[in-house]
């Protein structure tokens, strides 16, 4: 359904000021614009911002350019949690609209805890490369469980599969209302810890000797980053690579200091996600492609590039 730009402005103005709709604009197109499209764009922006900020933190804290919610198993953990809630149709009385994000949030933290537990068992010094490796193994395992669940769930299968690939369709204002405050709080916390983030990129021994209480700050940062990714994924499904790519690009442009990296990653991540969603929505009309497919097609080559560059850097 095409809504001319002039009508779009009129619909927005009418919604925001409370004035009646002008002649010639149907209530249907007003509803489509407000309830579906505006909400969808806002949600895409919030999700992109949250994922990119989360990726920036993971990369810095684990000192690994390939760290992200996706590679650490947080994404698949969150999607398994949210998928179980979807399948079971669990309705937690008080939680209501919050059941899905809460499941995502809780299972992302659980996933991170499991990955950290495995890493600690393998390597008591908790080397960052061990964490990444454990995350990838965990991620593959959990994805397999989710695939198995989809296969066994019969008619729910296509819904679950589609959701797993990430989409902003049919989420609406409810998701925006939950994600916006979560993102605001998390960004405030990350900005408050931006100097600790800077120092942690030099290594944990150095950070401790410079005066950062590493044993408290590092888990807090990982928890905030996991929660950001987990909440987002619970609403939108798994959208990979954006959280990995955006912080790298932002550091190239604005330098590595986190008081710039955090806000600009959020801004750039949000903008990019809106563009990716636009592509997903309009590339092959009338198909609404999963946005995760678009970010993966654009992001996977980037991932390879970062990987090979960092390998060459080390050699």
């Amino acid at each position: 359904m095409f809504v001319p730009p002039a009508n779009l402005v009129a619909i927005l103005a009418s919604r925001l000021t409370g004035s009646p709709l002008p002649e010639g604009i149907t209530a249907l197109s007003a509803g489509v614009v407000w309830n579906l499209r505006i909400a969808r764009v806002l949600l895409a922006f919030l999700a992109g911002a949250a994922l990119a900020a989360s990726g920036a933190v993971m990369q810095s804290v684990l000192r690994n350019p390939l760290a992200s919610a996706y590679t650490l198993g947080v994404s698949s953990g969150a999607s398994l949690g949210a998928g179980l809630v979807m399948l079971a149709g669990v309705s937690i009385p008080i939680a209501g609209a919050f059941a899905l994000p809460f499941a995502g949030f809780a299972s992302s933290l659980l996933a991170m805890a499991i990955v950290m537990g495995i890493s600690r068992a393998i390597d008591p010094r908790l080397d960052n490369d061990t964490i990444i490796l454990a995350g990838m193994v965990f991620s593959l395992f959990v994805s397999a469980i989710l695939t198995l669940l989809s296969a066994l769930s019969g008619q729910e299968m296509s819904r679950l599969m589609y959701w797993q690939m990430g989409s902003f369709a049919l989420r609406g204002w409810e998701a925006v209302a939950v994600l916006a405050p979560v993102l605001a709080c998390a960004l405030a916390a990350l900005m408050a810890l931006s100097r600790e983030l800077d120092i942690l990129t030099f290594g944990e021994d150095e950070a401790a000797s410079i005066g950062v209480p590493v044993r408290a700050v590092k888990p807090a940062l990982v928890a905030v980053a996991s929660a950001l990714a987990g909440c987002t994924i619970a609403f939108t499904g798994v959208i990979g690579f954006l959280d990995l790519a955006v912080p790298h690009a932002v550091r190239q442009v604005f330098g590595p200091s986190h008081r710039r990296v955090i806000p600009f990653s959020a801004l750039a991540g949000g903008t990019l996600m809106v563009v990716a969603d636009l592509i997903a929505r309009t590339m092959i009309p009338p198909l609404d492609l999963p946005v995760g497919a678009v970010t993966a097609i654009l992001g996977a080559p980037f991932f390879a590039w970062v990987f090979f560059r960092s390998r060459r850097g080390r050699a």
Partner: protein
Amino acid sequence: MTGGVLIEAKDLRVAYGKRMPDVINGISFTLRAGERLAVIGPNGCGKTTLLRALAGALPYRGSLLVTVTDAESSRRGKRRERRKMGQREAARETGLLSQLSSGWFAYTVRETVLLGRYARGSRSPLASPGRADTEAIDRAMAECGVLELSDELLSRLSGGQLQRVFLARAIAQEPSTLLLDEPTNHLDLKYQHGLIALAERWTAGGDRATIGVFHDLPLALRFADRIILMDGGEIADSGYPRDVLNGKEIDRVYGMPVADSIRSLLQNL
């Protein structure tokens, strides 16, 4: 010439994790102001672990007393147990130059040295550095000969320059004790001696001290006015550098006649 006690370890024990064996196996020593202490020993003897524990990067058992400097009067006051001090407070007493220090983000030299002011300056992450901070980092960069590199990116520096930048960061912390973990590794001869001379100058005032971990025994001999020889997480010998290097214990610990082999290495010069 040595002054008051800066650090006192009593029956210090360190392990990597709760059910892991002790890597530091109950060692005791005292560090006084004005001292340059070298810690030597074969691979795996626990010397780097000791330094990491002193820097607050590892938990320990036993006792590690640190003399606290009063910020106002810059007088040395009470002695406090390291683990009971806040990490920031402890960072005003000890600064670390770790081995293979690296960063893979493109910070500039000045940004890097400024991070050393974390425990000193304002607590607000968004505040710009104050005058005391700017003066301290300029002084530290000048002392380490990296002032003219201040806007350079870390990724463009040589190993020797990088090591001096990280030393400047530790000095900008204004600690009373510098901890150097094999500071001359991967440096060529000129930078090795430059770095040693720098640490000597820094300690020379008489109210600060340096602990250096060394693989290179002649360099330890050149640097230290006291040496601790470690073996299996314990102190095997300690004392004047010449005495320790010529002693019986060092030959047993390294499994070879150490002093003789150093002499024969240099004989052909």
